[in-house]
């Protein structure tokens, strides 16, 4: 499974099954504008990512370094890039 697929699945778990599956999550999908992810959903996504990718991918620390505007502009592609870099 590609990193993008794994992340997409986790996002589906967080925002609920009722996200229209036909609207595919891509590298350009933004968490705020496109997915309208709420802050508490970031909290739960971070926990799921940590569980899925293990200790080598410290997503929580990575996210915790982000300023408000950086989190607002965050794209799914940024997270994929971060995870792939951790696993090299």
């Amino acid at each position, binding site marked *: 499974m590609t990193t993008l697929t794994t992340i997409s699945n986790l996002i589906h778990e967080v*925002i*609920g*099954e*009722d*996200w*229209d599956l036909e609207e595919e999550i891509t590298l350009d999908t933004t*968490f*705020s*504008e496109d*997915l*309208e*992810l*709420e*802050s*508490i*959903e*970031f*909290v739960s996504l*971070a*926990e799921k990512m940590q569980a899925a990718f293990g200790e080598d991918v410290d997503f*929580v620390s990575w*996210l*915790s*370094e*982000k*300023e*408000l505007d950086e*989190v*607002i502009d965050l794209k799914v592609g940024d997270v994929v890039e971060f995870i792939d870099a951790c696993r090299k």
Partner: protein
Amino acid sequence: MARFLFVVPPMTGHTNPTLAVAAELAARGHEPAWCGYEALLERLLPEGARRFGLEGSLPDGFLEEIGERALKVRGLPGLKFLWEEVLLPLARDMTPGVERAVAEFSPDVIISDQQAFAGAFAARRAGLPWATSATTSADRRISLANIPKVLDWAEERLTELQVELELEPVKEPENSPHRVIVFSTPALCGEMSHHDERYVFVGPSLAPRPEPVPFPYEELLDVPRVFASLGTLNAERGQRFFAALAEGLGDDSDAPGLQVVCVAPGEFGPFPKNFIARPRVPQLDLLPEMDAVICHGGHNTTTEALSNALPLVVCPIKDDQPVVAQQVADSGCGLRLSFTRPRPHHLAEAVDRVLHEPSFKERAQEISESFTAAGGPARAADHLEALAGVTT
């Protein structure tokens, strides 16, 4: 006899819970008064209530425009908007008027809404004991736990504001060092590590509000009944949601198995035969007739439903609602669905589950009992009297 000044933001949901607390204080011989924007106070306060109505210097239509724009932004852009465009400008605008009201009324205690920072500032400046009124139990320390820089961002804005208003900056200035009165109970909102002895959980404060709204009670069918209210929605979001609700729960047969009462303007229809849709309803009178509630997780509607031991399906939209929705899901009294893309079959399945799986109703009943035990407005009044130094 002591004087109590309630400082409220121009938000109905933040003002209503103060009414019963003030009524309780008045019944004990004290003198309550409110300070807030005149238009809201005039609409919500009981006749004869003493009020210090602010006109403020915000441009005409500020609140309407804010309301309109607030309906469009969610998530973290919504958080940024709430702080930069609503809470901080309100605090700046309200502070001089609140300070004048304090000088004129000479309260013994100030009760400052958690989102009306001006009340907290005025109390500190006057050196008065004060309490925070937390009309929602959602807290930024919960929703921003994994994004601490965003939490810091909010704290920095509050520090700047205090410096601008020539106050010694303190952390979390909206939370009183004396009392934070939360209109919920740990049975619903959970135990939090930051809940120290300042935090008192009194449960919801539901005053019988004047609700001269007619409702056709005789038309209610003798089948399971679901109440659906999503608060104020803009046309686009409202139409999408109610279309999904109509598709998921609609039944045009002569003997439908479900009755749906929804708070929605006619333009969100057409609605199926088993729906009664009204733009306004007497919500508190109507809830005892219902079996379950679909809502957006507004704190007042959620706690009003739970006071009636009704299980919930919560579709949170923004602000504190995702946190409240999570509380509902975690406490087991209901289910949380995504509001963004409502799917008819998910709504139908969720409603079916909360109506027919007994655990949801049982948990709602337990939470309802915790609300009763928490003491409500009377317990809140006890705490406020204690701050005023009244021995009871």
